[in-house]
């Protein structure tokens, strides 16, 4: 496998001498239908190390994790655990091999108690081989003691905060005494204290001889915690470095693998009138006193860590969720709360982050999806005119270069990038004044990614106000005229294009986390 187009060609040997490898995956290939999720999954994890896996969204990290977890079976490649070749048939096999995975999104059972969630499938047994609740509770308490968190083992998991859920996942992994611990962005939603606690536990496990694979977007964590760093890009392995011997800049370059300016064809535009005005928007426990405005032709990025409340604010603005106080004005007119229809009529379009569940009706055809937002305007005497629908779908499909077999094909048959274009098409068809775009390029291949970026830029150029939510720093820096940074439900940074750098944004996004440590 060669990597002709990246700086990964000068990669170090993934396996480092002097360490005992506990897990090795080399050249793993995973396809879903025509889609290649992972082209070259390669990782070498040694006992007694914390190993970071970094890469942009869509680099194939999650697929690699799922292969390690036994959820996916690689179509090709070599997979060794403790020097033995393995082929996991299912999750249980992976667990039996001593691999424990903490996912980005906690997978707790909402109806079961906390203690039970930790021990499900291997509850301690007492008399007659029955589950001993007393023992289970005791051990759960013990684990939480170790972690220093006061969670009631007897409460049900439903309604737990995401941080508590994450802690429970970690407790679960610890209780497994796993030799190999995989943490897929475990800190995304944790506060400073919790992160510190987690790191202390991770170091302890490392010192006890476990191998830990740590996936994170936060470079401070990666460099503060990990011994080695492996970089992935576009589904392929790029390089592995000793942390001591590399720098943030070098890693970022490998992750992005191209010139940022070329990737983000930002056209300079003159900001026009204020389109969206948000004032004092508050929903207790979710976001507080959010004030900002977006002008015509301006791209405003809403940045911050996952769970900082960015999406929640956008959803409230659009009327999906309710908020308790504050006002949202479009072109000076206040919007009704919790009424997406009113928001649409006022000229807002919303491209949600989860395309499959929120953005599209996967079973419906391309044209039906495109026309969903036009339901009412395409109707004459309450009947949708098929011809008008077809024309609208074709016009926008062609304008956005949507590639589909036919407008009658279900959108589920399209690639991620083309699906995203259908979502954009459906909103552009409404002739919006403001477009809210949540994670515009999540799960989109590189080629289409640039196309989407160019499109957004173009739209702004035509005077549409854009509010973009993104976790990808290069995207934020490359696209935005202004950057709003959120942390823990508040706006903690307002940066101009000139002021916005990786450092300033990250600082605003994590500042108090640092200070609370």
């Amino acid at each position: 496998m060669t990597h002709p187009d990246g700086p990964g060609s000068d990669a170090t040997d993934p396996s480092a001498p002097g360490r005992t490898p506990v897990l090795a995956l080399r050249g793993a290939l995973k396809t879903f239908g025509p889609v290649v999720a992972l082209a070259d999954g390669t990782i070498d994890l040694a006992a007694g190390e914390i190993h970071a896996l970094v890469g942009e969204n869509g680099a194939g990290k999650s697929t690699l994790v799922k292969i390690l977890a036994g959820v996916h079976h690689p179509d090709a490649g070599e997979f060794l655990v403790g020097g033995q070749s393995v082929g996991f048939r299912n999750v249980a096999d992976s667990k039996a091999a001593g691999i424990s995975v903490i996912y980005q999104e906690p997978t707790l059972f909402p109806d079961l108690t906390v203690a039970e969630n930790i021990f499900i499938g291997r509850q301690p047994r007492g008399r007659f081989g029955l589950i001993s609740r007393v023992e289970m509770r005791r051990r759960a308490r013990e684990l939480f003691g170790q972690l220093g968190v006061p969670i009631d083992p007897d409460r049900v998991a439903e309604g737990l905060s995401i941080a508590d859920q994450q802690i429970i996942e970690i407790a679960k992994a610890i209780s497994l005494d796993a030799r190999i611990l995989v943490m897929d962005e475990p800190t995304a939603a944790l506060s400073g204290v919790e992160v510190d606690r987690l790191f202390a536990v991770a170091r302890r496990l490392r010192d006890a001889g476990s191998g830990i694979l740590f996936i994170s977007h936060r470079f401070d964590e990666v460099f503060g915690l990990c011994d080695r760093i492996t970089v992935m890009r576009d589904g392929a392995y790029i390089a592995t470095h000793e942390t001591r011997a590399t720098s943030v800049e070098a890693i970022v370059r490998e992750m992005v693998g191209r010139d940022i300016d070329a990737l983000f064809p930002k056209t300079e535009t003159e900001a026009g009138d204020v389109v969206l005005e948000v004032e004092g928007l508050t929903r207790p426990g979710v976001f507080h006193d959010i004030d900002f405005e977006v002008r015509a032709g301006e791209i405003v990025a809403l940045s911050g860590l996952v769970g900082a409340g960015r999406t929640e604010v956008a959803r409230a603005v659009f009327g999906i969720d309710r908020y308790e106080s504050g006002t949202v004005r479009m072109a000076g007119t206040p919007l009704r709360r919790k009424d997406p229809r009113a928001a649409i009529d006022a000229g807002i379009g919303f491209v949600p982050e989860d395309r499959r569940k929120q953005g599209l009706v996967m079973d419906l055809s391309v044209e039906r999806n495109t026309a969903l937002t036009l339901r009412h305007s395409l109707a004459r005497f309450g009947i949708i005119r098929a011809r008008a629908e077809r024309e609208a779908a074709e016009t926008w499909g062609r304008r956005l270069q949507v590639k589909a077999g036919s407008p009658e094909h279900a959108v589920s048959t399209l690639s991620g990038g083309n699906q995203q274009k259908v979502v954009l098409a459906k909103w552009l068809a409404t002739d919006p004044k403001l477009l809210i775009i949540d994670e515009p390029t999540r799960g989109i291949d590189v080629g289409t990614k640039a196309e989407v970026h160019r499109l957004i830029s173009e739209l702004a150029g035509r005077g549409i106000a854009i509010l973009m939510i993104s976790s990808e720093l290069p995207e934020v820096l490359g696209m935005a005229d202004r950057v709003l940074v959120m942390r823990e439900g508040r706006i903690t940074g307002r940066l101009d294009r000139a002021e916005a750098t990786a450092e300033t944004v990250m600082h605003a996004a994590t500042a108090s986390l640092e200070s609370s440590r």
Partner: protein
Amino acid sequence: MSDRLDDQPGAQNATPTEGHPPENGTPAKGRRMSAPGTRTPEEKQPKQARPAGRKADTTKVLAIPKGRTGAARILLGRDAVMIYVLIVVVLYACLTIPRFASPVTVGFLLLDVIPTLLIALPMTLVIISGEIDLSVASIAGLTSALMGVLWQGGMPIALVLVVCLLAGLVAGAFNGVLIAYLGLPSLAVTIGTLALFRGLALVVIGDNAVANFPPGLTAFATSKIGGTGIPTVMIGVVVLIVAFAVVLHFTPFGRGLFALGYSREAATFVGIDVARSKFLLYLATGTVSALAGIYWTLRYSSARSDNASGLELAVIAAVLLGGVSIFGGKGSIPGILAGVLLIGTINYALKLDRVSEVVLIIVTGSLLIISVVAPNIASAIREARHARRVRTAPLP
């Protein structure tokens, strides 16, 4: 996550499979679009760029694909297959069962299926929107009971009919409030109202049966249009069918229901008022069920509390057989028409042939299971075959 497969040298054998057309038909050609200006010729002249093989034809930039694709889709769709099956069954019955081929059959058959047909219409919409209503037959029963009591109490028949329809509307609204606005699970709620409405029917009319409805009206319920054998009431039913078909397939509201059934979130994002849509559906279900109750009462000229009992399962079976997905988001009015008529035809054909109802029950059950199991098994086989192909593909 979704890099194209043909990015990978040597992996082309895994391309393209049915149902998963690759982004671009011709591998390695014009794949990376870099700028709008550098479009491949296939966009400007789609016809010319079409290679000979059908495979490569599966994708292109969206453009005027009128003609074959559309027609083929309609002719091979599930609805169409249902209709073919119906036609085959009807033809077979005509050829082999003496006297089946006659206008009389049409009349009796339609009279039998009208209640199912009526209720299946709103039920289709409800199931497409991702909910269910098990209380329909009980609403029909309650309406029937009410009709009997009010008529016996001396109310003018026109007023009786209006009150009955209103009762259905109220019953539907009751379901609707609980499900749409309180967000309770429709399965549980309508099991509850199934018992409640049937119970109220019993409370209203008790053990009595009322039979002396105006003869003109009861005769009308079974009257036929001239010599065609088609019941007069079918005119009204056809109007309703058309109305529901138009609402579901050609109105903004109907479009919204599919979105709703597939994903509540996705529907909310395009401005669909989820609660209101569901509420309206239950209103429709209640009212149409009441209509079915009235028809039932008049056709059998007997208002009783147990009228139409058990009809809910027959309706749901017919609707599912007609291709509506129990998970919501899929289905069509032509499909369920074929489903209802198929069961009705088999039913009547077997009766005419004096085959026991036992056979009918078993056939209905088997049809239902096979119609949902077989496509899944077929697609599972397809997937397995695809997986094997990928796995045996030469590796880079």
